[in-house]
């Protein structure tokens, strides 16, 4: 054991190191290079090698069975409960097998970190690459939009901050534009499909940094990571600024926890200053990248300084200055027209809860099950975290830093409803610390190795995973796009000349990935919100749509209706006229003609008025 490790363990109130589990001799000798390798790599005897490699059999076999089982899935059959409705048992059993194997290894006195780590890796691959493999097209409408914004920046080489909010926080798009051009890609679409897996793999290192700063117990470390991945249903890891900003946020928290929050290992002044500089640079990148994450960062660093004794006391002031400076000088284009609406939401907790919870509980019964799974999963993680917090407090272990960072994002609820997503984001920001606290609680169950205790932990994890597959992939019927949806949008760009008004019946739609500023993008749900008020003379839907089209860019307005929009309306409802009804009415109307059709998409244009020229 190195002196540094010893110091950290002693200061964390864990003088014996891994209190209840003596480390295996081969791992305790961290000064030997061989200790870093999986033990079987350094052994000659075949029997020992087989014994050492045995813990790998389950994750390896699970991955193989899982991969083979995905070949037979028909994405067209995805139902109201999402991907789980088409996943065969052979794709779900491997998840259970890896979870049970992980818990069995966790319960062993000689649990090796690399074995637990490989189980976590197998879980990450299975959970976060499944959609990339099963679904024929990349999912999530915003991911396509983000491709379009990066493409606009790359092709124009400029930033028009009046286009929309994205151009006022362009950090992510600058990096994407740079990479696509340097890699010789036409656009960033090839990066979208595998982004969730890539981001989750990238989260591994900062999560390890964070949890290893909070505990020296190897089992808590890996269980915390397993729980993080098994419960992160928020799906904010797609191709997006928030996914990248979250990565940077984890790194900043990791730096502050490891080197600046007691108990800290002694670090000479020069590297300490350099580490602080890295944290500040990463904070600046977060501020330039995303609207909400900087406030989660500020809340976190403030909580660390105020409640956990973090010695980097200038960081909250620096982050505040970065946010204020960026908003004051770099977002004028957006703020000048939106400041009032942003400020009016501050403190409206009732409105926030209404838009974040009440408005989401509705739609198809299958979707309600998905929402229930999300609420239950979040409540379960927070409940397990409370259990872990209680156990740590009872045992006299340090808990202030984890508690401070777990609670820090909750004040954001009073700041903004964030389009009905603030509760999701708060759950995400709190998750690493909730997972750590939950892991600390669950490890207590298996402190004494026994099959029963390992199985009990397995049952908890499998139950969480069961909720996860509904919560995470429950909206896939609308979030995932069919080839017909994508081909329909491609046809829209082919038919509509630049400058046209493109109108989606509702959402989602895989568009805006090109010519971001070359067209005007609208939705009928915004242009025609809801039915006409009672008492007003009823005007047929087709006439109202015609009026909308005629008032925009006459002759160059296009309405597109796709399978994904109909699925979205069916699943979560709509504030306007359902897409299916729009399609039926426009099909039957003589005012419109079908400019393009495939089984999943239809494009309509207004017929010229009789006697009109051109």
């Amino acid at each position, binding site marked *: 054991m190195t002196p*540094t490790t010893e110091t950290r363990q002693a200061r964390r109130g864990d003088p014996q190191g891994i209190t209840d589990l003596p480390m295996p001799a081969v791992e305790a000798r961290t000064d030997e290079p061989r200790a870093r390798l999986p033990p079987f790599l350094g052994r000659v005897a075949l029997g020992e090698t087989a014994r050492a490699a045995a813990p790998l059999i389950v994750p390896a076999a699970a991955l193989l069975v899982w991969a083979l089982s995905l070949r037979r899935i028909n994405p067209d059959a995805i139902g109201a409960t999402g991907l789980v409705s088409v996943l065969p048992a052979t794709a779900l059993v491997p998840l259970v097998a890896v979870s049970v194997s992980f818990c069995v290894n966790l319960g062993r006195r000689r649990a090796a970190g690399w074995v637990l780590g490989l189980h976590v890796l197998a879980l990450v691959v299975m959970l976060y690459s499944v959609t990339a493999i099963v679904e024929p097209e990349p999912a999530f409408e915003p991911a396509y939009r983000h491709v379009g914004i990066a493409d606009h*920046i*790359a092709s124009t*080489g*400029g*930033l028009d901050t009046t286009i929309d909010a994205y151009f006022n926080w*362009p*950090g*992510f798009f*600058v*990096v994407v*534009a*740079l*990479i696509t*051009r*340097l*890699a*010789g*890609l036409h656009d960033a679409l*090839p990066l979208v499909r595998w982004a969730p897996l890539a981001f989750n793999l*990238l989260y*591994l*290192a*900062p999560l*390890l*940094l964070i949890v*290893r700063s909070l505990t020296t117990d190897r089992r808590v470390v890996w269980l915390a990571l397993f729980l993080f991945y098994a419960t992160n249903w928020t799906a904010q890891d797609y191709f997006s600024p928030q996914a*990248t900003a979250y*990565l*940077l946020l*984890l*790194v*900043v928290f*990791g*730096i502050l926890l*490891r080197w600046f929050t007691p108990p800290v290992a002694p670090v*000479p002044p*020069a*590297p300490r200053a*350099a*580490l602080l500089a*890295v944290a500040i*640079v*990463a904070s*600046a*990148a977060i501020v*330039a*990248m995303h609207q909400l994450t900087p406030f989660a960062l500020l809340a976190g660093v403030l909580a660390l300084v105020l409640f956990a004794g973090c010695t980097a006391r200038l960081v909250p002031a620096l982050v505040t200055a970065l946010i204020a400076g960026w908003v004051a000088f770099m977002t004028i284009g957006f703020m000048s027209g939106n400041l009032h609406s942003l400020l009016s939401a501050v403190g409206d907790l009732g409105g926030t809860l209404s838009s974040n919870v009440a408005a989401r509980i509705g739609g198809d019964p299958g979707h309600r099950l998905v929402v229930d799974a999300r609420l239950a999963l979040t409540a379960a993680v927070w409940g397990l975290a409370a259990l872990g917090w209680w156990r740590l407090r009872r045992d006299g272990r340090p808990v202030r830093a984890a508690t401070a960072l777990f609670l820090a994002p909750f004040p954001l609820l009073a700041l903004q409803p964030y389009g009905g997503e603030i509760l999701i984001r708060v759950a995400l920001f709190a998750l690493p610390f909730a997972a750590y606290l939950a892991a600390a609680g669950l490890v207590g169950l298996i402190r004494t190795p026994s099959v029963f205790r390992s199985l009990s932990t397995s049952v908890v994890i499998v139950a969480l995973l069961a909720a996860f597959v509904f919560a995470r992939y429950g909206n896939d019927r609308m979030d995932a796009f069919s080839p017909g949806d994508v081909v329909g949008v491609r046809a829209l760009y082919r038919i509509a000349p630049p400058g046209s008004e493109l109108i989606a019946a509702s959402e989602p739609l895989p568009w805006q990935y090109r010519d971001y500023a070359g067209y005007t993008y609208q939705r009928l749900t915004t242009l025609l919100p809801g039915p006409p008020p009672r008492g007003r003379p009823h005007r047929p839907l087709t006439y109202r749509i015609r009026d909308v089209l005629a008032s925009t860019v006459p002759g160059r307005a296009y309405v597109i209706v796709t399978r994904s929009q109909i699925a979205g309306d069916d699943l979560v409802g709509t504030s306007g006229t359902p897409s299916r009804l729009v399609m039926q009415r426009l099909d039957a109307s003589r005012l419109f003609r079908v400019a393009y059709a495939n089984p999943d998409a239809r494009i309509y244009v207004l017929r010229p008025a009789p006697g009109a020229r051109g």
Partner: protein
Amino acid sequence: MSAVRARWTGILVASAVLAGALEVAGLHSPLRLAVILWFVLVCPGMAFVRLLDLDDAAAEIALAVALSIALAMAVGGAALYSGLWAPGATLAILIAITIAAAVAPIARARPWRRP
């Protein structure tokens, strides 16, 4: 300089040279995408982070990726805001930063982290 540090210096310099060569050659291949992703998202940050001698692979990777993203954003963003958007020139700056930081330990007689 330890063998690990020397190996990293070699990897970083080779990655920088390869990224530059692929860009100049204009090769359209998945290899170019892989090299550019590796170089832009890992190498500039790693060139600095390994100077810290953290002795923790996870910490080094985490910090390297964060710093690389921030550097790419800073250099690319500066070019964009100043109206001088040029991905090739941005890459050249990142290559220069990477190589300078990668070979810095060679130029130093003794690392400041470990006497």
